[in-house]
């Protein structure tokens, strides 16, 4: 279980997170929604330790993440970055097998390549893709490779940062379905940040809305449409009028 208690983060005078309290149960798929620039990515990076919170405690299975053994802690996570964040200089299979080829439990290259090809197949990519470079792939294929890399080491927790941004609706649907399938199949805990409502409905067990640095609303995905919260209603229906200022 991941728990965030009173997490604050500012960048200079810009207060991004102002006391986040949130918990994600083991095996649950939580989607965080909110407008652009509301701190969703910062929240995710705080959990991973990529950004240090100014205040507050983040725990994974009761252990403070800032005091955990860093390598062991990160080995439990997989992450799909918004732009894929694939390493340009490495072939696709080397990207997917990156964590398998390094570290104390590094696998031989042949074995790591086999696993990479299997993961590529799992996300719907042919083995021929394995020897290509990321620059030779389309945006949708890069996302799939990013997804294969995120699940390569079979992590307990997977983070998805805007998984469908920049994709056409059909490819976005494919990625959403893949994420749902993989999370269910692996029994992993998932945390996704997005402002794509189709993704929310396809991926989420639970939804939390971030606004003005606070969790404005959270609940099961089934309650999303029926909640009277005006912020949630404005966001999910994409209305220009409402309590959320349209110009940020």
């Amino acid at each position, binding site marked *: 279980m991941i728990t965030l208690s009173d997490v604050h983060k500012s960048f200079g005078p810009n207060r991004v997170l102002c006391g986040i309290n949130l918990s994600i149960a083991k095996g649950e798929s939580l989607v965080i929604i909110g407008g652009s620039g509301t701190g969703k990515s910062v929240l995710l990076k705080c959990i991973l330790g*990529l950004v240090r919170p100014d205040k507050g405690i983040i725990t994974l299975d009761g252990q403070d993440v800032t005091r955990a053994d860093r390598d062991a802690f*990160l*080995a439990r*996570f*997989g992450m799909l*970055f*918004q732009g894929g*964040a694939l390493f340009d200089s490495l072939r696709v299979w080397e990207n997917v097998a990156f964590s398998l080829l*390094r570290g104390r439990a590094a696998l031989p290259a042949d074995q790591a390549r086999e696993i990479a090809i299997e993961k590529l197949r799992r996300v719907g990519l042919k083995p021929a893709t394995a020897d290509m470079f990321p620059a030779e792939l389309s945006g949708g294929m890069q996302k799939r490779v990013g997804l294969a890399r995120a699940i390569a080491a079979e992590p307990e927790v997977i983070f998805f940062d805007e998984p469908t941004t920049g994709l056409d609706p059909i490819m976005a649907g494919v990625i959403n379905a893949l994420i749902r399938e993989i999370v269910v199949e692996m029994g992993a805990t998932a945390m996704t940040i997005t402002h794509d409502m189709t993704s929310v409905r396809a991926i989420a067990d639970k939804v939390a809305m971030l606004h003005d640095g606070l969790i404005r609303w959270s609940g099961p995905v089934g309650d999303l449409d029926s909640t009277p919260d005006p912020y949630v209603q404005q966001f999910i229906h994409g209305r220009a009028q409402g309590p959320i200022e349209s110009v940020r």
Partner: protein
Amino acid sequence: MIGTLQNGLAAIGRPALDGLAAIGRITLFAFSVVSHLLRPPFYPREFLTALVQIGWFSLPMVGLTALFTGGALALQIYSGGSRFNAEAVVPSIVAIGMARELGPVLGGLMVAARVASSIAAEIGTMKVTEQIDALVTLSTNPLKYLAVPRVLAATLAVPVLVAIGDSIGIMGGWLVGITRLDFNSAVYIANTVDFLEFWDVASGLVKGAVFGFIVALMGCYFGMNSGRGAQGVGAATKSAVVAASIMILAANYLLTEAFFTS
């Protein structure tokens, strides 16, 4: 009046403090890189790739620079030396000038232009496209994976480039000497070999190692601290080349002071 004076002092003090803070950050970064040189994990593949990129691919540029510089140096020394009937010093002065100063300094500056910019742009782009964050989530220390192999490769490759550049530069002087200045080839070579001492060459190679370290360090530092977007990467690239060039010239003075003043 006092307010104007305070503003004037602040205008001097603020950049001075910023500059000192930057020097402090670069020094800490350098210590961090050096401290990781001997600690595992090691990344031999990244090291070899950097060695080829920095050493092998810089060779044509360093070679051409040295060739033309050696030739020009021979012409200048001949022209200046003729005022004192000392034209015969051309071979020895070209050799000493190339080995001690021009080989390492021009080689270092050319490598700074080519390598510091490319390292800063590559790492800066990796930063803005979240590839550095991705490294962290894959339990890989970006400093160890990106900076250490490049700094080590440059520190080892630049002295070799300097040695080759020295040879080509001396050859440039010899070519000009025998074709334009009527030197006898055998005499020119004999004068070069007789006057050149071990320390002339070795001091240049030590300088090359220091300049290589500076070049890669600046590329990595400014790349890893790049701002956002294309503008941030562009600024990081420019800063890396400027800082590396200035530090090479400053280090060259200090090393010359240390090596050649009694």
